[in-house]
């Protein structure tokens, strides 16, 4: 699947956030980089259909299955990690496969604790697990490794690379090392 973005403009209260952004992203991981306030999150929200641009077009997403790690975890805090995966998967939910994915990310396979009791880093990984567990054609990740230590970050990068192979991924990150580890392209917003 290929996403084609052409001449995208978006402003809030007259303040431009995205200025004439154009790019094409095909299968593989594309890192979206740039200083804070340059519209990275806004771009992802437009791709997810949560915002409308003032002008410009996004093509290639018709009927595409989307998945995301948002800037916030957006978890069902009173539920277990498996329940959070079950919520997005519905009848496709397979406890064994979901447990395996959680374990790959360094989380307990089965845990009766609600995610409310998890640390910030653990919650972030549950959000990543949820995004990777859902069937998707385009995966957008908004700083998914925030709050993760070195080893855990590497483990998550490996899991992301393996589990998203052959599909289109846009990853917002501030760390160029993420792009190097994933071997993908770069898109810089200025």
């Amino acid at each position: 699947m290929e996403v084609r973005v052409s001449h995208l403009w978006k402003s809030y209260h007259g303040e431009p956030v995205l200025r004439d952004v154009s790019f094409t992203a095909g299968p593989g991981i594309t890192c979206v980089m740039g200083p804070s306030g340059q519209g990275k999150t806004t771009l992802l929200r437009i791709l997810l259909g949560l915002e409308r641009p003032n002008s410009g077009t996004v093509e290639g997403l018709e009927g595409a299955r989307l998945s995301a790690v948002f800037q916030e975890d957006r978890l069902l805090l009173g539920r277990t990690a498996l329940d959070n995966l079950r919520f997005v998967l519905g009848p496709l939910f397979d406890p064994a496969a979901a447990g395996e994915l959680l374990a790959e990310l360094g989380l307990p396979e089965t845990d009766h604790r609600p995610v409310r009791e998890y640390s910030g880093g653990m919650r972030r990984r549950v959000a990543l697990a949820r995004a990777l567990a859902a069937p998707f054609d385009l995966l957008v990740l908004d700083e998914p490794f925030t709050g993760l230590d070195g080893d855990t970050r590497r483990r998550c990068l490996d899991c992301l690379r393996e589990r998203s192979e052959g599909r289109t991924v846009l990853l917002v990150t501030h760390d160029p090392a993420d792009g190097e580890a994933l071997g993908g392209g770069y898109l810089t917003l200025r």
Partner: protein
Amino acid sequence: MGPDRPGRFRLWAALVWLLVWQAGSMALNQPLLLPSPVTVAACLGRLMATAAFWADLGCSALRIWGGFFLACAAGVLCAALAARFRRMEELLAPLTATIKAVPVMSFIILAFLWLPRRGLLSTLIAFLMAFPVLYGNLLSGIRATDPQLLEMARVFRVPPSRQLWYIRIPQVLPYFRTAASLGLGLCWKAGVAAEVIGLPARSVGERLYDAKVYFEVPELFAWTVTIVAVSVAFEKLFLRLVDGAAERMGL
């Protein structure tokens, strides 16, 4: 809830007030005006030994709880519609404001004149007391639903039925709990008052009225104690069920 919850019921405090009541009764020495707790307990014991006591209590409870559960159903439906359609909220606003402002006695007398069956009186009054509270709280609960979670569900294309179970009901449940607690108390107070006016057959209101007419003050006290006990017991049971549901939903 922790041990420092304000208004927490303590056995020792209840005993102190029972002693105050006993002392007051002894000091007044007018059993017809203020019978002692012992006299009231004995009277209640005698009443409880009769089938009529349970029949009257059961019929009143069914009528009043019926009004409460109807208010729950109407409150859920109207709050869901009002949250979805602004016009519906605007339409209901004068109605709920009027119900809240009009004295309950006015409603009781009007309903007494209008209703074809006296048995429906306490059901209608219980409904009118509980509905605005339930509707208002449920609407606030629906409005307070986390928009970020709804956005997340939209991106993952989670169907509305699953969103209802995982997001909407858990977020609304605490609001429903508060409203139910308040509404149940109001239902019993106003429902019994309606029965005293309407005097439907087989009702607590009729027994209270008889006790007043025949100056059976111990019986009046015994029925009052019964109403309080049943009202509190049902409220606790109902809220326990709501809490159980909340726990299963991970709240």
